[in-house]
């Protein structure tokens, strides 16, 4: 369900008396999947089958498509054909920018599933709270401290046969009436994974550690301060689909939030946050033959370093009356980004080289967002919103400025950009159990610092080198989404259709390609005219008995660049999932079928790709909760050891083969 969905991730752990930042929008969401019965919302349904899972598994489990470059790690969100900066991905409203220019580290790589309480997904262009994109947004809400709770410790350990993936989570929380504390540590480590052909994929292991500490202080019943910190370190992360691996990626994410409930109808929150990511990667673990024969810059090692630092301020105000909710957000960020690459030739007579890929880019952005939800009449709501951003953009490294000025002569590097988005929608309750809605949205997004200033960035799937261009126009989209849902106690069906016309589509411009013998073509980013995206999502849940339920989803997307008469790249084909959940509050089982049709509509001009065969996999799970404080879980993923890859798997990196896993969760 990709219209506007908030998914409650963990039921373990309490909720807070003061609202989360998401709360205002959860209120207006057409569908809020928070259910109580054991089958429809059991204590593990919205967790991935794999007990060793990551945020990637969570997103996949909930209908998002991921562009995969590694072993179940650091997947890049796509939804309804939108990807990259077309989807605004935030953590508690905070912007965390990837430091790796090769997209190894989307911001979801720096949080753990255990850090989160909700994942809020929107794809109809109506979520403008934390930034402007082309209509897609994903916001993860971080776990918060628990007040008035005795100290509680949770230990969750799991292991998996494939890649010997191990996961350990230790979580402690508790609080008095006024002070709440939570600390959680997650360790995940894996060796090289095995695919469905029983072939071990080299350089696909990783180790990842994550520490979250959050403290809350209720000054009184209407004032709360919260200080949160996440430290994340990933080491030796293999990226089989790419030409390099992460040696070390460190993220430090901190925020101070003040929440104030002024009255029953007025509340605010103000958050000051900062985060810094330091990412280093290299190809030292790759075999010499691969170094010597690869298409891009052969015969040399090329360690790269990328850093991003973000400072931000987020002020949210919500005002509600019996029939109206108004949400106003001020959102300001400052980004500093650098990326460099060394080139160390195998031939020691050749001098080592050094290149700057991002030369101290500085992006300062301020935005104002307002949303209105008004009940026009009984059963009829009107929702509208708008957002405007202004952004100052530059690069400071003088040598880098000089280099890229040569590549784009006459293009100013210091840019002030404006962007505006607006949406409106009608939500009508036709009957007690039948709702319909329609949303019309116009969205803009400003180009990213990589699209503007990136230099010599390699796309290993398309095998092209990309250079940025600072005078890119905003990408924009006009979209129409219509949907409906039918809900009864034992049956819910919902679906939506959308059509989106994208203007000034941003991509590496094929017309700028410079081909040099023995090298991948070099392209400059450009606005590639108009593109169309259309598709649908449908989901159904049928609780056939108190102990048995079926859950099915189906989604499809079609995209075409009109300017190049070329299918848009990285669009997943018709994809379906069917889950059967059995059990009660003590023991539950699940069998999940998921698969996709063959994708033969492939891009040949914008980002060349190949076709992907159809695939299907089956996952099994059984979970037993003999005591309220104890959960034992065992699963087998990819039961039939199917060899496949998703269409959005870069360079056709295969999915994991069959894996048995077992886990234990103790709540003390």
């Amino acid at each position, binding site marked *: 369900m990709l219209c506007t969905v908030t998914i409650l991730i963990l039921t373990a752990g309490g909720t807070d008396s003061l609202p989360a930042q998401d709360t205002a929008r959860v209120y207006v969401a057409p569908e809020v999947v928070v259910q109580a019965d054991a089958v429809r919302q059991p204590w593990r349904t919205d967790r991935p089958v794999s007990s060793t899972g990551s945020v990637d598994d969570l997103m996949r489990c909930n209908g998002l498509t991921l562009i995969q470059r590694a072993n179940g790690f650091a997947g890049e969100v796509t939804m309804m054909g939108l990807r990259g900066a077309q989807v605004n991905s935030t953590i508690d409203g905070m912007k965390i920018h990837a430091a790796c220019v090769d997209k190894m580290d989307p911001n979801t790589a720096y949080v753990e599933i255990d850090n989160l309480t909700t994942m809020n997904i929107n794809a109809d262009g109506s979520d403008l709270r934390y930034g402007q994109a082309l209509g897609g947004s994903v916001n993860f809400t971080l776990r918060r401290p628990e007040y008035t709770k005795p100290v509680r410790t949770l230990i969750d350990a799991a292991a998996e046969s494939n890649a010997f993936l191990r996961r350990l989570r230790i979580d402690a929380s508790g609080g008095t009436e006024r002070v709440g504390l939570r600390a959680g540590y997650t360790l995940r480590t894996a060796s090289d994974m095995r695919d469905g052909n029983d072939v071990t994929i080299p350089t696909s292991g990783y180790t990842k550690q994550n520490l979250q500490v959050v403290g809350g202080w209720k000054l009184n019943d209407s004032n709360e301060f919260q200080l949160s910190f996440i430290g994340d370190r990933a080491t030796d992360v293999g990226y089989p689909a790419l030409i390099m691996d992460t040696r070390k990626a460190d993220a430090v994410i901190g925020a101070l939030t003040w929440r104030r409930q002024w009255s029953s109808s007025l509340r605010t929150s103000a958050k000051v946050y900062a985060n810094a990511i330091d990412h280093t990667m290299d190809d030292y673990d790759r075999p010499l033959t691969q170094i010597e024969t690869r298409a891009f*810059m052969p*015969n*040399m090692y090329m360690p790269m370093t990328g850093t991003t630092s973000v400072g931000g301020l987020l002020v949210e105000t919500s005002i509600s009356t019996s029939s109206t909710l108004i949400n106003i957000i001020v959102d300001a960020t400052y980004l500093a980004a650098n990326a460099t690459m060394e*080139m160390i*030739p195998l*031939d020691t007579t*050749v*001098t*080592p*080289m*050094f*290149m*700057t890929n991002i030369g101290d880019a500085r992006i300062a952005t301020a935005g104002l967002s307002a949303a209105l939800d008004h009940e026009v009449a009984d059963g009829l709501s009107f929702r509208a919103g708008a957002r405007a951003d202004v952004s100052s953009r530059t690069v400071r490294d*003088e*040598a*880098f*400025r*000089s*280099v890229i*000025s*040569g*590549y*784009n*002569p006459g293009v100013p590097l210091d840019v002030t950009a404006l962007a505006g988005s607006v949406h409106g929608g009608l939500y009508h309750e036709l009957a007690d159990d039948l709702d319909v809605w329609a949303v019309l949205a116009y969205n803009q997004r400003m180009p990213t610092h990589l699209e503007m200033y990136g*230099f*010599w960035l390699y796309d290993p799937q398309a095998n092209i080198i990309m250079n940025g261009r600072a005078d890119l126009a905003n990408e924009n989209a006009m979209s129409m989404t219509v949907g409906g849902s039918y809900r009864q106690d034992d049956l819910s069906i919902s679906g939506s259709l959308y059509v989106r016309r994208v203007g000034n589509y941003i991509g590496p411009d094929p017309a700028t390609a*410079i081909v*040099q*013998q*023995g*090298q991948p073509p*070099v392209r400059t980013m450009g606005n590639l005219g108009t593109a169309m995206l259309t598709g649908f999502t449908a989901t159904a849940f049928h609780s056939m008995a108190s102990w048995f339920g079926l859950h099915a989803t189906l989604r499809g997307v079609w995209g075409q660049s009109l300017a190049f008469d070329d299918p848009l790249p990285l669009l997943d084909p018709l994809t379906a999932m069917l889950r059967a959940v059995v059990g009660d509050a003590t023991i539950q089982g699940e069998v999940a079928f998921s698969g996709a049709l063959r994708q033969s509509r492939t891009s040949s001009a914008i980002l060349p790709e190949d076709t992907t065969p159809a695939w299907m996999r089956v996952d099994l799970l059984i979970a037993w909760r003999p005591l309220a404080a104890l959960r034992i879980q065992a699963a087998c993923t990819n039961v039939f050891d199917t060899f496949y890859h998703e269409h959005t798997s870069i360079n056709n990196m295969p999915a994991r083969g069959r894996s048995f896993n077992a886990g234990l969760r103790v709540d003390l």
Partner: protein
Amino acid sequence: MHATIMPDMDMGMMHHSCPVEQPSETAPDSSGLLRCAAVFTMPSATSWTLGVTLHDHEYDSIATLRLRIPVVDGYGVRTARSANGTTYVFTLLASPWKVGMNDIRFAVHSTTDGFSFTPVPDAQLTFEPSMPSMGHGSMGNVQPSHVGNGWFAGRVNYSMTGDWRIDLIVDPMDGATYTAQYDFLVHR
């Protein structure tokens, strides 16, 4: 007063000179120097001498001296010989190259006797920077145009540090084209 210089290389069986730019001033500058230039076409620790003639117009006196000067190896001078016996000297003015856009200057001189070198202002020059170890060049380069006295000025973009090469094609309007190659290092 004015001064002239005359480089000379003693190769044993023969002598030759090289392109020069004579001092244009009639009095030393504030540093006490008369500025001139010579493009030494080959290295030698002992074979080059620089003949200097000073003519004091006020007293109509002439003084000469001969200086032995060592010339170290460099990358900036290439020569080519035409079918009709003309020798061309193609000079890339060495610079402290840096990453990014750089001014680049070439000189083209010709001689038929090895002693008298004349600028070739009508020559057409094109150059291409590349990194042989990487297999790529760079973009944004500005091809050189004549700026006077046989010198040609353009712009070159070095996108990274490392070993760079400039391939120069010269058409001196004698019915043939000539190529020259310069290899050097761009530092961080």
